[in-house]
């Protein structure tokens, strides 16, 4: 177990390093940088001024040096300066994180609470009407663009209740804030719960095909016992992994949902930064997202290792 942990940590570090290189390179594929945009909008190119700004921003250095400076800065917590606002990048990013985090946790919570039980039911009653209905619902959950769902929810609120549930940060009243966040969380969570439900279902079905289920029946165990004592215990293991995969899917949904519901979170900020070619922000945000995904996956792996006796007691 200990060796497993160390191996996973090392792998994680390696992956993060690779991601940082990848992001850095991807953003610089197309020649041209922010100075071009500044001068594009001005209409003319003043070469001397351009070079001056480039020097200030450190854009005249070779790529490798620029990368080095960024990484060194990351280690220190200095993320550089945003091009647009010229404030330290970290000051722009940090305050936007909490609301996104709350939204993400709420959405994940919904998806597990709804997805797992429905997935089990669907598997246990395979091929019945209930199963078909649930499968269709979950498929539609995967088919609806989450931003469209968000728009529809907005429409419904406006039409039936007359008010638009746009986000207002109400510091102090956490309960009210969370309640309001439930609505966009539902929009994001619908897709996630559909995914969790489908994967729980297929995991359960896979487990129910195993030999040891036949053994349990041969012992005379009742259906309930077979499904919940025997099968579910084995089926949840992949579901835990699924939650890790969900972390990645969720972020995509957060990006569009924050845009639709006008939530000043970190995900929406990414889009804004991209539009403005604000590379320091984009770089750091994408890195941040990658770190979150990798760390969540790591935690999920650890949880899985604890739950599965085959890994916990390695001989």
């Amino acid at each position, binding site marked *: 177990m200990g060796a497993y942990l160390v191996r996973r940590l090392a792998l994680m570090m390696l992956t993060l390093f690779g991601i940082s290189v990848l992001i850095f390179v991807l953003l610089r594929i197309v020649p041209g940088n922010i100075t071009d945009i500044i001068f594009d909008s001005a209409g003319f190119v003043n070469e001397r001024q351009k070079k001056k700004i480039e020097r200030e921003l450190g854009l005249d250095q070779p790529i490798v040096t620029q990368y080095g400076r960024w990484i060194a800065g990351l280690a220190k917590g200095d993320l550089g300066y945003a091009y647009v606002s010229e404030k330290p990048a970290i000051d722009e990013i940090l305050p936007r994180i909490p609301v996104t985090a709350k939204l993400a946790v709420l959405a994940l919570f919904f998806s597990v609470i709804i997805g797992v039980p429905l997935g089990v039911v669907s598997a246990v009653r395979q091929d019945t009407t209930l199963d078909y209905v649930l499968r269709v619902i979950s498929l539609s959950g995967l088919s609806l663009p989450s931003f469209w769902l968000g728009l529809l929810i907005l429409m419904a609120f406006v039409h039936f209740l007359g008010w638009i549930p746009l986000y207002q940060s109400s510091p102090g009243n956490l309960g009210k804030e969370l309640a309001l966040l439930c609505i966009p969380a539902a929009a994001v969570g619908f897709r996630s719960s559909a995914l969790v439900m489908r994967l729980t279902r297929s995991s359960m079905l896979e487990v129910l095909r195993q*030999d*040891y289920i*036949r053994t349990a029946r041969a*012992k005379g165990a009742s259906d309930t016992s077979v499904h919940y004592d025997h099968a579910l215990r*084995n089926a949840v293991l992949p579901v835990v992994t699924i939650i890790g995969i969900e972390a990645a899917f969720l972020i995509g949904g957060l990006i569009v949902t924050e845009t639709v519901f006008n939530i000043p979170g970190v995900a929406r900020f990414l889009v804004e930064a991209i539009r403005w070619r604000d590379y320091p922000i984009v770089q750091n945000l994408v890195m941040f997202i990658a770190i979150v995904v990798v760390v969540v996956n790591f935690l999920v792996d650890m949880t899985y290792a604890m739950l599965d006796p085959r890994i916990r*007691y390695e001989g």
Partner: protein
Amino acid sequence: MSDFALEVEDLQTYFYTRAGLVKAVDGLSFKLKRGETLAIVGESGCGKSVTALSLMRLVADPPGRIVGGSIRLSGTDLVPLDEPAMRAIRGNRIAMIFQEPMTSLNPVMTIGRQISEALILHQDMTRAAALARTIQMLGLVGIPEPEQRAKEYPHQLSGGMRQRAMIAMAVACNPEVLIADEPTSALDVTIQAQILEVIAKLRRELGTAVILITHDLGVVAETAEHVIVMYAGRKVEEGDVRSVFADPQHPYTRGLIHSIPRLALMRSGGAAQPERLQEIPGMVPALSNLPPGCAFAPRCARASDICRREIPRLEEKRPGLVAACWHAGETAAVAHG
């Protein structure tokens, strides 16, 4: 209380598949005495495993179904029972162990828990009492340090020990009949002997009747008193093990016995003449596409017109031995060059 633990009469289990109707078990009848060991042999696809599953009423429906016959366990017919009644009997009065001990044990439950489950379910024991009995059973099947083993998970045990644990699980409630479906096929040869010894010991001490399903004639010779040979879903020969092995009446049985190395047979009193290894030409027919007469006819050197037209009936060819063959007893050797 009848003399017989199990009386099977004209059992028919059919499968409805895309390839057509598969008569996996087609009219099988036999009686199992208390405390007796009966072996059912045949190649894969002959219907022996389906027979075992049918006895436990574990045949998946769809695509399979018991369409006819009766299975009497100490007088009670199992075929018409509803599920709850059958569940009370499974694992309790009739139990089964399977071929692959690794995949047949739940990987996330301790051994002790899995064995105790049967006890709690059928004997209404408390957790503590069941655990005590579990440890006792583990000791009975020859597992060292049973208290420690009970707390362990399947993957922590070796193949042989897992199979012993499976056996302990099956006999925990002292069933009248134990069905062992290829219990040693997945194990090393050295472990095989140990497992067979465990089964034999339990038979002696608990008086359980055992149905041993296998394709390995060596195993049959070692452990069984009575043997049934199955081919294409039907019984083709039945009798006392020594008698059948010494002078088999059905050409298929003859072929089976002649195609194994003589060492094991010589030990249990087979013919002393070493012969060349002979194989049975051809392949087992697809059960959805059986020939009209005797199912073995296409592969049989002695086959004649009547064989291809009519299915031979089971007749007593010698005291205590029945076979289904129009040419049983003819000493013409299997054509071999």
